[in-house]
């Protein structure tokens, strides 16, 4: 994309541009962004089209029966996960970024580990551990001499609370990663001023750092909430009836794909409204730094009880979100006789890694294009198109897969029909049922993730630097290449790695769209886990987690390294 844009640099206005178009190529960025956003929004539009053709109006039935319950459960789930990820993510990010306490160096990266743990896996593992038949309750019964579940009270893991806990544990790293990067990139000046004016650690966080980090934290929480809305595996396993459950009932049990699409769109509208409200409320605020005094942050030393509290606060999420489930899986994998160590593993793993890498590259490239185009004095249409392109994240994977199928198959069939008529050759399906459909689906699904990271990165670059570059005669493409890309490469890497890890874990869209005889680690795990045979698939589950760890560690490193002041560059 850069090469293409470069070709026009300094070539003057292209002939098809109107007289009012900026002469420096901004319009080209807008057009490219619109085209890309349109392409990525196609599956969503396909779902809209589906929603316009329901087989039956499902709302009267739903409204008079389960809808109020679904809505309430969904709102509570989002509220719980939203608050949970915000508190854990921001709190731990602040501690490791700004304070010194035992284990800080370890937690910097360890806090990201739960990101490698798919929500459905952690749900299976904790159910095994905490259910009535699980080891914990069995031991309790043994010790206290209880026999039936009526003899004592124990929190039910398969419940709304359980689902909130599971989703919070695996989703808080989104907030943590983005908040920590932002805290690290904040100029030390504002914090020193804050402390000089008599604010302590926590009040500096509340009054200065948090408001400044708000865009990044908002992106993190939004990602967590969207993930929460599209999650079906965890809530279904926990018998928590959210709107997503309604989508699947209407689609599969009532045979009404149109009605299901309508519910999915209502959910989507809800998320869009949330995002819009958040953006609206800070529309007049600017968050880039005008000072770039970025000498290394010393960290506020914590002592005694405070230091221990900080250590415990950082240990718990890692322990519960990663160490415990990973240990259980490892135990199953190495001690259970049912564990299946299949030679196919290598192939599944290769599939997973290749798909994830491809999806990460495409998603970051498109996100950079979109976010940068939006910076080029883009109008409302471009901004709206970009938002539309990133809503795929909030749509349940299986529904999104149908949205991907429709335009892909339509394209394939159109090409086939055209060639049959003109040349007499049938091409069949070129793209549908191939890996490209999968990569496209992942891109649509996870663009919001990479876009959030890239936008957060670009947002911290003050326009005056851009203006300087432009004054020095660089076009938008050269400015991007020479100014922005080097400055936001930490964010690019963050975005790419998040998409990578997300794709490793992705299940529902992969199931529907994959080619023949094709398995990823996630689909392999699902075959067994969905049948309560966690032991059998523990080796593969462990592999999903292991494959997610490396990118997570890279991610941790890149965020640490992204602090410009660290290298003493004179920018």
């Amino acid at each position, binding site marked *: 994309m850069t090469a293409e844009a470069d070709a026009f640099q300094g070539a003057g206005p292209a002939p098809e541009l109107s007289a009012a178009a900026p002469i420096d190529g901004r319009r080209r960025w807008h057009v490219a962004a619109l085209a890309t956003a349109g392409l990525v929004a196609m599956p969503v539009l396909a779902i809209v089209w589906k929603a316009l053709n329901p087989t039956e109006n499902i709302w009267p039935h739903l409204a008079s029966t389960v809808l109020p319950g679904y809505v309430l459960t969904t709102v509570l789930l989002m509220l719980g996960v939203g608050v949970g990820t915000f508190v854990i993510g921001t709190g731990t990010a602040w501690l490791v970024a700004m304070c010194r306490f035992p284990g800080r160096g370890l937690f910097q990266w360890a806090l990201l580990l739960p990101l490698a743990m798919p929500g459905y896996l952690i749900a299976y593992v904790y159910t095994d551990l905490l259910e009535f038949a699980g080891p914990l309750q069995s031991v309790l019964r043994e010790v206290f001499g209880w026999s039936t579940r009526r003899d004592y009270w124990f929190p039910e893991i398969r419940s709304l609370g359980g689902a909130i806990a599971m989703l919070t544990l695996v989703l808080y790293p989104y907030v943590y990663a983005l908040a920590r990067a932002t805290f690290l990139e904040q100029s030390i000046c504002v914090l020193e001023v804050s402390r000089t004016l008599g604010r302590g650690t926590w009040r500096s966080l509340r009054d200065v750092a948090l408001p400044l980090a708000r865009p990044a934290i908002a992106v993190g929480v939004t990602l967590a909430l969207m993930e929460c809305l599209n999650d079906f595996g965890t809530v279904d396993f926990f*018998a928590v009836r959210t709107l997503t459950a309604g989508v699947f009932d209407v689609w599969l049990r009532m045979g009404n794909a149109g009605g299901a699409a309508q519910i999915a769109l209502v959910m989507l509208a809800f998320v869009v409204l949330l995002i819009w409200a958040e953006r609206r409320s800070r529309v007049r605020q600017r968050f880039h730094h005008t000072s770039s005094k970025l000498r290394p942050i010393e960290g506020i030393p914590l002592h005694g009880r405070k230091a221990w509290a900080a250590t415990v606060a950082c240990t718990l999420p890692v322990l519960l979100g990663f160490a415990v489930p990973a240990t259980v899986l490892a135990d199953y994998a190495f001690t259970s006789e049912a564990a299946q160590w299949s030679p196919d593993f290598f192939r599944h793993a290769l599939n997973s890694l290749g798909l994830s890498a*491809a999806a990460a590259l495409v998603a970051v490239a498109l996100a950079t294009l979109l976010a940068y185009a939006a910076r080029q004095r883009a109008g409302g249409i471009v901004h709206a198109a970009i938002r539309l392109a990133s809503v795929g994240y909030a749509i349940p994977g299986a529904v999104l897969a149908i949205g991907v199928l429709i335009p892909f198959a339509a394209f394939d069939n159109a090409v086939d029909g055209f060639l049959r008529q003109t040349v007499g050759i049938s091409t069949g399906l070129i793209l549908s049922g191939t890996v490209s459909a999968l990569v496209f689906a992942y891109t649509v699904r996870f663009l919001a993730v990479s876009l959030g990271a890239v936008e957060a990165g670009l947002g911290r670059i003050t326009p005056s630097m851009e203006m300087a570059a432009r004054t020095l005669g660089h076009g938008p493409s050269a400015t991007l290449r020479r100014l922005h890309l080097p400055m936001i490469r930490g964010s690019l890497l963050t975005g790419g790695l998040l998409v990578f890890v997300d794709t490793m874990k992705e299940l529902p869209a992969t199931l529907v769209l994959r080619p*023949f005889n094709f398995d990823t680690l996630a689909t392999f795990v699902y075959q067994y886990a969905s049948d309560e045979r966690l032991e059998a698939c523990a080796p593969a589950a462990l592999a999903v987690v292991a494959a997610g760890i490396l990118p997570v560690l890279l991610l941790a490193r890149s965020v640490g390294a992204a602090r410009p002041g660290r290298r003493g560059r004179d920018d």
Partner: protein
Amino acid sequence: MFRTLTGALLGSAIAVAATFSATGSAAAAGEVNIYSLRQPFLIEPLLKAFTEKTGIKTNVVFAKDGVVERMKAEGANSPADVILTVDIGRLNDAVEAGVVQPVSSKTLDANVPASFRDPEGRWFALTQRARLIYAAKDRVKPGEITSYEQLADPKWKGRICTRSGKHDYNVALLAAMIAHHGEAKAETWLEGLKANLARKPQGNDRGQVKAIKEGECDLALGNNYYYGAMLSNDEQKPWAEAVNPVFPTIGGTKGTHVNVSGIALSKSAPNRDNAVKLMEFLSGNDAQEIYATANYEYPVNPQVKWSPLVESWGRFTPDDLPLSAIAELRGAAVKMVDRVGYDG
């Protein structure tokens, strides 16, 4: 580091793309393409036997949801030859979506009794599975429960476990109750059953038996083959040994409610001949025996004997309600589950 990483990512992406394209097209001669809603490990032994016998290679995509939508979108160019699925409702969905075509085959007609196939040949059942009541050996006396209707009896209050009322198998059972008793009576029954639940509907059929073993409940609904599957699994064997399988009757008849797994020929089938061969093979003696012995399902082919283990659970009479009636009432059943708030 950023560059190295990008390089590594690009490199692996290209390598994988190359691997994929090498495995390429699935429409060549000697193949049959299967869209399966059944789990791979259930059908793998059957497909292996088919390839050994005929030399035809099988290609499978397994997905629980969205298969019919995929075929609809792919249209005339869909590579699918057959759909393998459970539940008459799912077969009916495929028929109504217009993605299947009729088959007329003497072999199929001979192997599959008329009540187990569509009169127009658009779908064929391959196995039937009884929906059983599993009763705790030590807490429920033999003969204490003999019908589905008795599940609503208040004496079982707080003693019954089931999976979600919206699961295909429970929906099919409820549809059968509606067919036998009418909507009003069936709804009263479902309300009674809900009132007897020991816990919110959750998990799968095996999970319910496990709950009986652990003393959470005394009765559970589950398909018959899970009993066999659990008995042959070291970890799950104690669960199965804690229960007695009961073949309940429905609607005052002697019949037990059954659901089916089945197959349909895709409308677009590029390898039509191979697909029909596969359908004939799966309904034939060899495959039906694998279904019976490896999966503990009941073969639809009357010439094939039940497995000795399955036989040991006793003979039963399947409910003679036509499968089409269950398929038709499925929508009403799902809505009833919502009205009663069964899943809570």
